[in-house]
């Protein structure tokens, strides 16, 4: 019997168990602690049932499950002290389904995580309005609310691969800055009506209550006015501090930085403010030395999460699985190539497929044991196709730093080692 046991989150089909774990996925260096423990060869090896632990006020993960975010900094800066981290990435290689667990939702914070007492938090809404108002958290909770599942993605997602592909990277390193949660809150439109926004106001400044006072100018297009909301709920509970407690802006389909956390001010005006974040930071430097500004929408994207970087596979049945998303709307289809982007097959999408939310895709594959490359590409309902690396770099250059959505290729060598490559 092979000494490797499959990832605890990826149980293999029972019919393969007698074939030495053919097709099982090992999580490599990130494997769960329990992966080296003995399995159950026959039903007689399964431990007897017995009374379990006392019931608690909340439930913890099994001690056999090890899933963690990893704090990182700019490209190439990994395994760093938490005090030097600027983001913390979602472990997509260990997750299933469409929704990211709340505590594993990625985080990008610009001045740490403030410790805010909701009783002392206020939201000021002012500027070009009829009556400027101050709201408490309780005020918001009394208002009509909406609940929506959306992805939020840092524009830095994918930034490790602009210039080169470090073969040691996992999908957590390459694509851990996107997550999908269910958010609950008050439609922006409702607040706009309460304060009586001037018709002449078509830009809004949203500002956070963190040390950096992160602020962004938001164009009040019909789409944004109709879809943006101020959230106080996340997966059914109050927001976690890392994600903006007690309230944040949610901007479905748009740059993570626009989803202002710890929201404390909305100001209505008629031109962008040219804040540091929309000039010096989240702009994309092109090959000609000019920077693209106000590229606010997140592009059509996808990535194979199983098998992915640093895993090891064996010949035979492999279930390829991954995530796709688009800031333009719903994902229409995901195609997978298992021969280095020569031939493509359509993958299955897990229902429901929601607008501006991540969707799980999967496809069966029989690996013949020969070295190859696997890659996914998504197409959204507007017809936007995720670009291949070569045409993407031809358009954006290699200095843009943000908005990387080129197809992600994983190479597989004759030993079944899965590694990050550019194409």
């Amino acid at each position: 019997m092979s000494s490797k046991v499959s990832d605890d989150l990826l149980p293999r089909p029972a019919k393969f168990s007698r074939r030495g774990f053919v097709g099982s996925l090992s999580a490599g260096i990130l494997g769960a602690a329990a992966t080296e423990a003995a399995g159950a060869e026959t039903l007689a090896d399964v431990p007897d049932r017995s009374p379990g632990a006392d019931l608690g006020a909340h439930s913890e993960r099994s001690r056999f499950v090890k899933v963690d975010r990893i704090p990182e900094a700019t490209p190439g800066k990994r395994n760093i002290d938490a005090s030097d981290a600027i983001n913390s990435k979602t472990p997509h290689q260990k997750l299933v389904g469409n929704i990211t667990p709340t505590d594993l939702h990625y985080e990008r914070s610009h001045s740490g995580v403030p410790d805010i007492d909701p009783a002392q938090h206020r939201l000021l809404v002012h500027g070009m309005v009829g009556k400027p108002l101050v709201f408490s958290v309780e005020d918001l909770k009394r208002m009509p609310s909406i609940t929506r599942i959306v992805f939020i993605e840092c524009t830095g997602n994918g930034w490790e691969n602009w210039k080169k592909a470090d073969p040691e990277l996992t999908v957590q390193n390459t694509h851990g800055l996107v997550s999908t949660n269910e958010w609950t809150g008050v439609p922006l439109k409702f607040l706009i009506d309460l304060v009586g926004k001037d018709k002449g106001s078509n830009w809004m400044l949203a500002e956070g209550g963190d040390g950096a006072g992160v602020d962004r100018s938001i164009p009040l297009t019909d789409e944004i006015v109709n879809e943006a909301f101020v959230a106080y709920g996340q997966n059914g509970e109050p927001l976690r501090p890392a994600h903006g407690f007690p309230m944040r802006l949610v901007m479905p389909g748009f740059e993570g930085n626009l989803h202002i956390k710890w929201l404390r001010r909305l100001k209505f005006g008629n031109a962008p403010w040219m804040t540091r974040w929309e000039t010096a930071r989240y702009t994309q430097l092109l090959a000609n030395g000019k920077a693209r500004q106000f590229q606010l929408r997140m592009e059509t994207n996808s990535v194979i999460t199983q098998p992915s970087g640093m895993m090891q596979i064996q010949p035979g049945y492999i279930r390829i699985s991954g995530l796709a998303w688009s800031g333009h709307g719903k994902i229409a289809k995901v195609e997978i190539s298992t021969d280095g982007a020569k031939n493509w097959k359509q993958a299955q999408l897990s229902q429901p497929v929601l607008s501006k939310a991540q969707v799980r895709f999967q496809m069966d594959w029989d690996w013949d044991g020969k070295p190859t490359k696997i890659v996914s590409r998504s197409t959204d309902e507007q017809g936007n196709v995720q670009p291949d690396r070569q045409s993407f770099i031809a358009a954006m250059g290699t200095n843009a730093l943000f908005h990387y959505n080129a197809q992600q290729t994983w190479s597989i060598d004759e030993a079944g080692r899965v590694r990050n490559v550019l194409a």
Partner: protein
Amino acid sequence: MFSHDKLLLAGLFIVGLLAAPALAFDFGRPATPGEITLWDIDVGPDGKGLPDGSGTAAQGKQIFADNCAACHGENGQGGIKDRLAGGQGTLVSSMPVKTVGSFWPYATTLYDYIHRAMPYPAPGSLSTDETYAVTAYILSLNGIVPADGKVDRESLPKIRMPNRDGFIPDPEFDPAKLFRKK
């Protein structure tokens, strides 16, 4: 505070009944001009929001050394955090250096950012004049204002940054075209 809010809410409720035909209830409370001033810190590229006061690059040198150099380096270079000076001419290279001098399009953003976010351990702790002075000093490190230069609410928006024309708006959200009447 609680009873005051309650009174205010009761007042709003009555006013609401009299004045607003659509809603017989209301949310939040009116913001007073005084408290709006307290939080209304943003500065636009036209200089709107800049306060009275001024500072010189010479004054800023010492303030920078005391509050900024630990992270940003002696002359805005070589620190552990963002480089603030130099880098002009590197934006088309394979190793672009984005600094205030080489990349930032508006000098007003510098005042806004220092005032709202810096120094990192105590954002907003510099006085208005100190903030102007540090702004002038960082601009002087980039040769944008002279070593004895002074900035204030009049002069800052008039400064033409070297990379002012270095940005191309995304076609979908180009501020110059987005809400223009057809």
